[in-house]
């Protein structure tokens, strides 16, 4: 088991619930689980982690979310060796926050507008940036990742 973690990060493991969720996200049909009190969570769940309700329904994620915080990772784990530097962000999508990698931005800018612009199409990410969510690939090994992309507002 430890060898597997070290080599492929458990990528060959089937994770029922999560795998279906990221499949749906890739098809543009991402969802959250929501309880009657409106608490959002991500699968697999049997009860709401906030209130314990077992009445969970799937609710479509909004088309757009907003970045609440981000970082530019320069020292990666092995699975992301060829991806660094890259931007990881936490973004609010309705009842849940998602953690993902921001594509279409310039990581070298470090979130600094003045340092952005090595690629004319790429802008600096900042708190409050509006993003859409889908599924991308790690450059290092092709593994699937939650990917955000800034959209015009």
């Amino acid at each position, binding site marked *: 088991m*430890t060898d597997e*973690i*070290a080599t492929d*990060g*458990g990528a060959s493991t089937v*994770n029922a619930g*999560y795998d279906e969720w990221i499949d749906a996200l890739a098809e543009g049909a991402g969802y959250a689980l929501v309880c009657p009190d409106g608490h959002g*969570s*991500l699968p697999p769940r049997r009860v709401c*982690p906030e209130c314990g309700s077992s009445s969970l329904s799937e609710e479509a994620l909004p088309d757009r979310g907003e970045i*609440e*915080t*981000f*970082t*530019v*990772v*320069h*020292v*990666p*784990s*092995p*699975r*992301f*060796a060829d*991806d660094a530097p*890259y931007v*990881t*962000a*936490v973004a609010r999508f309705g009842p*849940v*926050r*998602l*953690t*993902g*990698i921001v594509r279409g931005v310039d990581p070298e800018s*470090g*979130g600094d507008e003045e340092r952005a612009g090595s690629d004319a199409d790429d802008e600096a990410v900042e*708190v409050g940036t509006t993003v859409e969510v889908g599924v991308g690939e790690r450059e290092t090994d092709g*593994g*699937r*990742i*939650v990917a955000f992309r800034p959209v015009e507002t």
Partner: protein
Amino acid sequence: MTGVRVAGVGLTRFGSHPERTGRDLFAEASERAFTDAGVDRDAVEELNYGNFMGALAEHQGHQAPLMAEAAGVRCPATRYESACASAGVAVREAVRTVAAGDADVVLAGGMERMTNLDTEGATEGLAIAADDLFEVRAGVTFPGAYALMANAYFEAHGGGREELAHVASKNHENALPNEYAQFRKAVSVEEALAAPPVAEPLHLYDACPITDGASALVFVSEEYAADNDLDAPVAVTGTGQGTDRMALADRADLASTPAADDAAAAAYDDAGIGPADVDLAEVHDCFTIAEVLAIESLGFAEPGDGIAAARDGLTTADGDLPVNLSGGLKAKGHPVGATGGSQIAEVTRLLRGDHPNSDHVADADVGVAHNAGGTVASAVVHVLEVAE
């Protein structure tokens, strides 16, 4: 309920010992603890041992029996794992066991071996303290997670890299005389600011190093200390633990640490004290921003004010409330599964007056240790007081 005393403390030098086995590191720390305590190994009734990533670093699970052998004790032995709070929870259970009257003598502590891995391997090992499906697969590293918290804090309260650099500089200064510290090297605010980025806004000197080391503590009941004429002037008077949602994204707030709020409230209540009674603290500064969040959770600064505490001198060695006089995880080092025990050892030495930085806190009676796991999904706080 009975009073719990720290009879003895033992540490290895924290640092890079890639050739040394975990069992040898823990053997050294426990030997020092027994010598310091004046307690015979045969008296130990339980071993509570903390370790986080031994399965990855040493291909070794089931470490507790191994460490009982290494320490030369024969008693029920259990490994505790709560990421970087592994030794904190091991200590907490030792304290509760003695307080409940279930044992008179418990050995607790922890060990981590990390530098035999390369930086990528250690980064991967540390990352497993986060949610694998929803965080690690999204590129979250351990520094990256704290960088997300730092940016959220700056957004909510202001402050920036310069204030964090003061935390780094302070803790490096404190480590200079500490014989157990990994880095006994001064780092100026300017040097910290100029260091390369790890996960922005955190740079090299915002991050603790990768460290090998072990800690061990001998806890005894007050009655045992008296009956055996032990010199054990420091008591553990409060213990508290808190748990939060595992993934940062699932927390109510990204710029505070509610699990540590809960742990602190419980520990203060247990000890019958409040933050104003505390004379010194060892807090879990795996990253500079973590010290800021810790002192806010411990009630030493209001939310939003913690960022300026080092810069303004509140938490420096000669400030009103010195924080991390050991050098902290930042400069003393962070062998993750040993850290929570090492903090108890440092607070004990500071209160007993035999720490190289004790002169800064000569009149101190009350110390606090704050140990956190992951991005503070786990937190443990202990209150120690001079009882004699």
